[in-house]
């Protein structure tokens, strides 16, 4: 166990995901996500053909999150544990983050731009939002707060094949390394370098 503060990451193993949809359904149910919004989405390429690959895409909670950098009203912010949150009361729904995000994580409900969910919605890492943990307001605006309960995000907890791994950066890195060693090649850690670049980043 590292003595430094935990830093949360996702590991998306493109060599393991079977597109069962467990993560998508569990996320919606846990956070009561409205229809048409997907905080995590499984994307399949080459469907039905050799090379068919599935990738589950949540918000990666990037180390130097480009969405945070472009948000004109500072509605987006990075918590000390690395989780990137949006404050829905500050968000003006401009959509800049959507263009900045390499993963397409920000979601904008169609139709009712000024409703409670009219502003940007995205994966919270099941860590609620800026409001009082477990409050009715937090639940209504952001969904559940499993992190405050000492639990992992729902998607990773239910993943059939452990393709989606969440947790403290060092623990997650151990899983990534173990799989890389076993496979002898390609880690399959989709989006890892983009979300968590090791070198300096412009």
């Amino acid at each position: 166990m590292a003595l430094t503060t935990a830093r949360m990451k996702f590991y998306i193993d493109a060599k393991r995901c079977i597109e069962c949809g467990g993560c998508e359904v569990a996320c919606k149910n846990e956070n009561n996500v409205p229809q048409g919004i997907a905080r995590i989405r499984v994307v399949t390429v080459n469907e039905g053909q050799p090379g068919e690959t599935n990738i589950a895409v949540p918000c990666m909670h990037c180390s130097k999150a480009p969405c945070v950098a472009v948000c004109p009203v500072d509605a987006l912010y990075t918590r000390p544990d690395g989780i990137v949150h949006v404050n829905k009361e500050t968000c003006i729904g401009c959509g800049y983050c959507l263009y900045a995000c390499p993963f397409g994580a920000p979601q904008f409900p169609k139709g009712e731009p000024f409703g409670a969910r009219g502003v940007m919605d995205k994966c919270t890492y099941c860590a609620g939002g800026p409001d009082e943990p477990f409050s009715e307001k937090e639940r209504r605006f952001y969904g559940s707060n499993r992190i405050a309960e000492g639990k992992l995000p729902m998607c990773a907890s239910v993943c059939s094949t452990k393709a989606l791994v969440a947790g403290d950066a060092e623990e997650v890195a151990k899983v990534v390394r173990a799989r890389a060693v076993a496979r002898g090649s390609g880690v399959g850690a989709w989006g890892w370098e983009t979300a968590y670049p090791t070198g300096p980043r412009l």
Partner: protein
Amino acid sequence: MAGLAQVFGFGAMTNHQNDIRNSRSVMIIGMNPAENHPISMQHILTAKEVNRAVIISVDPRFTKTSAFANIYCRLRSGTDIPFIYGLINIILANGWEDKKMVNERTYDFEALKAEVAKFDAATVADITGVSKEQLFQVAKAMADNRPGTVIWAMGGTQHSNGTAVVRTYCHLQLVLGNMGRPGGGCDVFRGHDSIQGVTDIGGGPETLPGYYGIAETAWKHWSKVWDVPYEWMLSRFKSKEMMEKPGFTVARWYEGVLLDPKELGQDTNIKAVFFMGHSTNSMSQMDRVKRALEKVELIVDFDPFVTNTAVLPDRTDGIYVMPAATNYEQWCSSTNTNRDLQWRQRVVDPVFEARTDLAILIDLAERLGFKKQFIKNMKGSWKGVPASMKEVKALPEQTIDDVLREVNMGTLSIGYIGQTPERLKRQQQWAHVFDIKTKKAVGGPVDGEQWGLPWPCWHDKHPGTSILYRTDIPVAQGGSGFRALWGPKAPDGQTMLAAEGSAPAGGPNAGYPAQKEYATDLTRGAIKEAMAEGRHPYGNGRARFNSWNIPDPVPTHREPIHSPRPDLIAKWPTYDDVKEHYRVPQPYKSMQKPEWAKQYPIVLTTGRIVELEGGSAAERADWWLVELNPEMYVEIHPKLANDHGIKNGDWVWIESPEDMDGKPSRIKVKAKVTKRVGPDTVFLPYHWGGVFEGKSLASKYPEGTAPYSVGESANTVTNYGYDRVTQMQETKTGLCRIKKA
């Protein structure tokens, strides 16, 4: 299941899902675990990553599972036997067989050799569509990478010769020496929660619990267990003959309603039908099911959701929908595909008017006048079953303890003895100490136990048998030989007992027959005696290449009843017609019409998808799942679609030869154009219901109970055809034609 039982002695998966972590090759044939058993993929992918196991996927569809395979073979649906025999042929030609296994632990290898000789690679390629080169590649991969497992599901069994198909999978594993060892085995995956348990406790119409059959000895044994006089039991039946006659199966019960009683194996029609957690949209011949539901006097549909059954028939009364409690609302023990038992905790009281299964059954017994006998073994120290069950929704946990105790008492045949309520509850508390690869507990009060105490588990200190037929460990630790089920000698005089030097460790080092009366001695004295000598109660016998007591003793290829290859029908015809099978006539040859291939040239196959399960009354009523897969569809290859002028998303009609009525059945569905299927085959998921031949039945659901998604049932167009032994429906291979709607 029947196929496994006819070869090894037990109708159950021989190893367990976690054990695939020990495999060096994994042949997945006629199944799609990535959609139907998602969690098992953890084990399969671990074998692939850590052991560099070769994953071989054999299927008419390039499934989501095939995407993870090192080798994918596109097999024409219904041609498994030629494919497997082709492999065995190559294995024998190269001397790759396990001679010790074959010589010491099997019966009539010569008969198998003679049969497989007919299937040279060229013949196999012609029948199956799998090339000579690929066949060799698979045979070599299996031979070079032992231990290997063969896993299958309904793709192997839903054929008119399904039992024979399964036997050939078993034969392949015997020849490779993959039986009775970690990482090997014949690992059929059961497709529903506790379906292995349902089979074990006598869900089939031909046996009492524990596979005792329904002859007089079986009834006497169970009457003793149930503590009721045999004569009383006999008096409940019309005659002794009917008592001992197998009943209808779920595949064809409706013929018991529709056919003239003169054609049936009983002198009246079925008058009432009680559905308990079963959907009609998973049964083939939907229009006949519909007509039966219109003709039968009484229908009861006991389910947490309103199913297809309630809306399918055109009738206004005589149909009762009763809300059942879900698994979250009741305690139970369940048996999974690994033969593992688990205790289930109730999470909430039954909601609204829902009632638990046990409450309903006891109430039913009360109303039918045999409640006293029905609950005789409920002897717990609790207050007891109420005098009147009329208003009772649920019963205390101890009633479920008593049910399991009764199972422990009577089901000696397959060792359902040591899985007591106390041990299952203790395992539930200590789940964290079990190793993921071996399923064995390390330390704690459960030290050394196998997770789930998989049967056979011979007494309350026995760890259970997580891998069947394993001779390298003693019986006390879960070792066993093949079951000596067929006596000491075959009809041809050859021995059916294992050879000297091939027996579970620590006991007599040779074959031996089953312990006398081990399955009926309720004192368990016979079992104790065998265990004390390190002998397995069910004996140490030989697995059979030749199952002399069933049709096709050595399996041979038979074209599906609806074959797209008239030329092959001539050479490999289906069975002769059968006058009576499970009380209904079962024609074969007279239904196999070579001319159909011209009118209906496309192979029709069906299966499941990950978002939905079975008849899906529950899943289609779940918004999140419906959002992911909102409507019924047919998978069509781009070539076939283009030839018919069909574009992705177009409405199409699928028409099939409706053989029993002489009129074609049809369904209207959306086209999904994809290369998953080949250009000669279309695929339909079978989960939808609530639309019949283009007409929505949604308005017939009681107010507020219609699912979010209704759609045509694949089984409206699946063809006639049933397994020669089990009567399993032939829904994996049929014929159809398509038209743009």
